[in-house]
């Protein structure tokens, strides 16, 4: 007669047991990576190592160094053009000036250099008997609202430019609607546009340099001709990391909060990771946690308590699950204290010590 040994399990039972054991086993917990950007008094922040907060892997990040300024030889080109003009080599003068990108100068608000370039261009063209070119340069200078620089040019050229400025002043202005990143700062021909986009400005006829600058975006500019163009939309690319860092620093320099909506967006771009904690050391530690470009938590603690601050931020932001009440030491401390107090009160109020009465004559 065949019989099963008592320890032998059917395949279904085995599978059930394995499932049960697997379900009861603690799930492996991987630390959540959070980039940490420390700012201000680092002594007040204290040590904040990679594993300072249980459940998190803190990755310190630094603000990227500002990008070195690109070399610009516009001044040298203008100096060479000026020298050529002085010695009567008007072809060389015009050749040097042809290399100067006036629109670019205006896009970066360098109106003085742009005015010098166009003045020399008008003067050199005038002396080279290219009168139409001279008038065009003068008209362009006037249309851009540039002022005649103190660079001495021939009186005829000066007269030409003066006439162009007068003519531009009399010309009817046309509206130009400008769109771009909402709230971006507008400059028109290197001068503040007086509004934040989207907005409309009135401009004299001619070419104009429209430039937009917004935190979180790379600057954008475009040359438009009025009144042919009635509206223009400038597409702005997200700021690269270095630029975002510069913009964030500049905002702090302007006294703006480091973790307002724009600051948070910049931090996210700087960190290049989904989660970034910002800790500022000062009389109090302040901090914020940004998740996917959105501010999720903000808090403050006493100096030196940066791990606790980051942990609270992680709890508030939902990056870490706050432990159940009964798993927190504070709960047991409070419960024990309450029990002790209640017990003491009960004992003191209810307890009657034994009384022994001696009776004698």
């Amino acid at each position, binding site marked *: 007669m065949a019989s099963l040994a008592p320890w032998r399990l059917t395949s279904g039972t085995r599978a059930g047991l394995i499932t049960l054991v697997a379900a009861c086993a603690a799930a492996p917990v991987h630390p959540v990576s959070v980039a940490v950007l420390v700012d201000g008094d680092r002594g007040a922040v204290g040590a904040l190592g990679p594993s300072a907060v249980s459940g998190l892997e803190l990755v310190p990040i630094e603000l990227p160094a500002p990008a070195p300024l690109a070399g610009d030889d516009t001044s040298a080109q203008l100096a060479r053009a000026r020298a050529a003009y002085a010695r009567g080599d008007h072809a060389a003068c015009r050749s040097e000036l042809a290399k100067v990108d006036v629109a670019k100068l205006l896009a970066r608000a360098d109106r003085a250099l742009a005015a010098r370039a166009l003045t020399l261009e008008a003067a050199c063209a005038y002396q080279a008997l290219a009168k139409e070119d001279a008038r065009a340069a003068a008209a362009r200078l006037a249309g851009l609202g540039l002022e005649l620089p103190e660079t001495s040019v021939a009186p005829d050229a000066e007269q030409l430019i003066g006439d162009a400025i007068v003519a531009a002043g009399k010309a009817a202005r046309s509206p130009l609607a400008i769109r771009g990143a909402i709230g971006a700062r507008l400059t028109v021909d290197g001068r503040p546009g007086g509004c934040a986009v989207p907005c409309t400005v009135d401009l004299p006829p001619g070419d104009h340099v429209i430039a937009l600058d917004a935190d979180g975006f790379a600057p954008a500019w475009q040359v438009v001709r009025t009144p042919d163009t009635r509206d223009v939309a400038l597409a702005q690319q997200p700021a690269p990391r270095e630029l975002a860092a510069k913009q964030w620093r500049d905002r702090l320099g302007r006294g703006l909060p480091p973790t307002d909506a724009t600051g948070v967006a910049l931090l996210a771009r700087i960190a290049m990771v989904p989660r970034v904690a910002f800790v500022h050391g000062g009389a109090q530690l302040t901090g914020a946690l940004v998740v996917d470009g959105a501010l999720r938590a903000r808090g403050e603690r006493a100096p030196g308590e940066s791990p606790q601050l980051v942990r609270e931020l992680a709890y508030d932001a939902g990056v870490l699950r706050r432990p159940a009440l009964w798993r927190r030491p504070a709960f047991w401390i409070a419960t024990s204290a309450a029990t002790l107090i209640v017990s003491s009160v009960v004992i003191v109020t209810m*307890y009657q010590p034994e*009384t022994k009465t001696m009776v004698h004559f």
Partner: protein
Amino acid sequence: MRYLVLFALLGCERTHDVSIRLGPDDQSVTTGFQCRRADDTFIGDIALVGDRLKFNVVVDFVDLGGGVPGCRGEELVKTCKQPGACTIAGTSRFCVPLDLPVALLGQADQKQLIALVHDQLVAQGAITTDAPNGPLLIRAVATTESCTAITPGHPFALAQVIGCAYSCPVVLDEIDGPIGLSLDVLDEHCEAQVKVCASFPP
């Protein structure tokens, strides 16, 4: 820390000290020990041995069974009406022999007599160091019966009783200080009341 506090609290013990006076104050003896018969003779004369008066004083704690009646005899009787409602507490009875010169008895100033009685009573030591906790009254009976005969449950031989007094009902664990004994009578002809006192509780 918690256990330390608990231990300290449990370790606490209050001690009360109650002294018994054989009269309304410490200068006099209650009438209950000076009663006379109808013929005006002192009922204590049966204790005379030559020129000395020899008798024993027995102190009992009468357990009032949880009730706290008033001090008057009628109230005590009502509380202890049922047999067994009130009992003599304890497994032994305090008994101390006194030996007094007769010469001291007739004096108007009882100071010397009281001092002598007090010395002899105190020489026996404390009546108890841990009195029963509950309503009771303290009764002192003067008798010529020997202390060896005075056992728990033994009723006094009334013919040999020469004095009796008791306190008002009291819870000894709640008081501290002197407590006076007396007999609820209006004159010295109180032989009958002494015997009733000695035979209490019924």
